[in-house]
């Protein structure tokens, strides 16, 4: 049929995946249209995810830091907290970034079409125009013809069906609105998102309960890393309920009454001013009428792709949260570049670009709690489960001059090297983890080491500046190699 607009590449969704793909493709010379239902670009990450959470976490971290400074001779009284101003700060951070995205889209001549997009066929998307702060439809419609398309529709928070509708029950988006500071808060789901939000609210004064079905918080990370975080944060929690299900809730004037049931059958109950559901995110794959374009979507709503980010329909790509775990912004961006390059390569007849593929060995994870927990590549738990022989180098920050000087020596840095017989004692680094302040800023070095195939000598012989937290990476490699002189000797 006839279309209102036409482009080389249509990108559906303007989150980190979508805008990165659109910008990369435009830079490579394609005519690009992005369809986004919300007024601001940036998706979950910029508007209700990575960025606002970190804006609040930073303030919380400084507040927590200050509360210890009296011991060091600098006494600040209790702060007066203006929640409206704090929320305003967070909004300013968001609009600075989303404003930047809009400007960059313009500079790149990427057309942004506001509205809800659905496929009509393998070369057309229909956009129902939306307006206002949310996604209210105006009734106007547009049809866009595309040569190739990238689906970057992202994900949304899972909602527990049995929870009543009540403004004291929120998901991460609601929690980020920071409407006030509850006295008593329940976090359903002990993953990163829940624990980050809990950190903010607890620093602002809330007492926390957390309930988790599995047997530990912050799944995915090695338990030794999590243990350090947990010890430092024990004081925030009244109850950490593991192997426990949330089975019901009722809204009462005094608060939300929530019922729990342990895997062992024990029942319990709690009363909360605020309940945060953070039990995971579900992909938006089923909401774009992908089937009309012939694109296969799994039962759970994911869209499967190959290493070039192609769906089963070769000229339609998918990237970001909608293609699978880990649902992380940096994964979305790197996938976005691949999809954009392949699309541009095909369109422009550039064989090298068309060969682009996603082949990163590892994708790091970070919990921006206090301390931060960061890990990348193989974990010790995985090594054990998969029977991979590893040599571990662990450097405790109790031996780090900088960590001690900062009054924050609870952390450690750990590296895992291949210790299979074929490695002959010079095995490459397979993974690593850091728990401690600035962990997230330093895990990139371990990712680079893994991508470069570095071994313990490579990392240990790289001179890291003293006194930094970063030198703990060099030290951990020396430990694995047996040449560290900042720790007690290893028994022979």
């Amino acid at each position, binding site marked *: 049929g006839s279309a209102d607009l036409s482009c080389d590449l249509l990108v559906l969704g303007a989150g980190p995946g979508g805008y990165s793909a659109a910008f990369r493709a435009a830079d490579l010379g394609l005519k690009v249209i992005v369809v986004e239902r919300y007024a601001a670009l940036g998706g979950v990450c910029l508007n209700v995810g990575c960025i606002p959470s970190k804006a609040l976490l930073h303030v919380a971290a400084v507040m927590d830091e200050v509360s210890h400074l009296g011991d060091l001779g600098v006494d600040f009284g209790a702060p007066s907290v203006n929640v409206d101003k704090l929320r305003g700060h967070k909004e300013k951070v968001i609009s600075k970034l989303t404003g930047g995205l809009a400007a960059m889209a313009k500079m790149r001549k990427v057309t942004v079409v506001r509205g809800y997009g659905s496929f009509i066929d393998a070369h057309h998307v229909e956009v129902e125009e939306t307006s206002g702060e949310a996604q209210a439809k105006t009734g106007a419609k547009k049809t866009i013809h595309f040569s190739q398309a990238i689906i970057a529709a992202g994900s949304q928070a899972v909602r527990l069906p049995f929870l009543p509708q009540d403004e004291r029950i929120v998901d991460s988006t609601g929690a980020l609105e920071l409407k006030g500071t509850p006295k008593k808060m329940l976090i359903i789901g002990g993953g990163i998102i829940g624990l980050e939000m809990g950190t903010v609210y607890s620093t602002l004064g809330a007492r926390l309960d957390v309930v988790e079905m599995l047997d530990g918080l912050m799944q995915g990370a090695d338990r030794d890393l999590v243990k350090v975080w947990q010890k430092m944060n024990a004081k925030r929690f009244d109850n950490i309920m593991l192997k426990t299900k949330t089975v019901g809730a009722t809204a009462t004037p005094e608060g939300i009454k929530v019922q729990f049931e342990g895997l062992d059958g024990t029942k319990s109950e709690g009363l909360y001013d605020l309940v945060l559901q953070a039990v995971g995110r579900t992909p938006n794959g089923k909401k774009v009428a992908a089937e009309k374009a012939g694109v296969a979507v799994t039962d759970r709503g994911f869209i499967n792709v190959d290493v070039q980010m192609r769906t089963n329909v070769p000229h339609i790509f998918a990237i970001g949260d909608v293609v699978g775990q880990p649902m992380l912004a940096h994964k979305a961006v790197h996938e976005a570049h691949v999809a954009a390059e392949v699309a541009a390569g095909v369109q422009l007849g550039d064989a090298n670009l068309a060969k682009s593929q996603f082949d990163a060995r590892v994708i790091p994870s970070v919990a921006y709690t206090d301390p931060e927990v960061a890990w990348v590549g193989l974990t010790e738990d995985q090594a054990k489960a998969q029977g991979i022989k590893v040599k571990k180098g662990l450097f405790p920050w109790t031996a780090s001059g900088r960590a001690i000087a900062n009054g924050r020596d609870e952390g450690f840095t750990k590296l895992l090297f291949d210790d299979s017989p074929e490695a002959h004692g010079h095995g490459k680094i397979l993974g690593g983890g850091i728990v401690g302040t600035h962990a997230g800023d330093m895990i990139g070095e371990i990712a680079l080491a893994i991508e*470069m195939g*570095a071994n*313990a000598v490579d990392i240990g012989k790289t001179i890291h500046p003293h006194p930094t937290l970063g030198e703990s990476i060099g030290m951990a490699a020396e430990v694995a190699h047996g040449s560290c002189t900042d720790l007690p000797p290893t028994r022979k």
Partner: protein
Amino acid sequence: SPQDFSSKDKPIASPSVRRRAWELGLDLTQVRPSGSGGRIMHADLEGCAPQPRVLAGPIA
């Protein structure tokens, strides 16, 4: 100063490859690189004949 700013002229080899090369008495400029971007890999050192090599002069 021992800082080697002119390392752009040097063979591309990681610290452990460099270390292994000097243990084996190899001159890295004589080793054929097999890694991406012209990097000398551990495997490239195998089977290379040692060359007489002089230690560099004073560094400080």
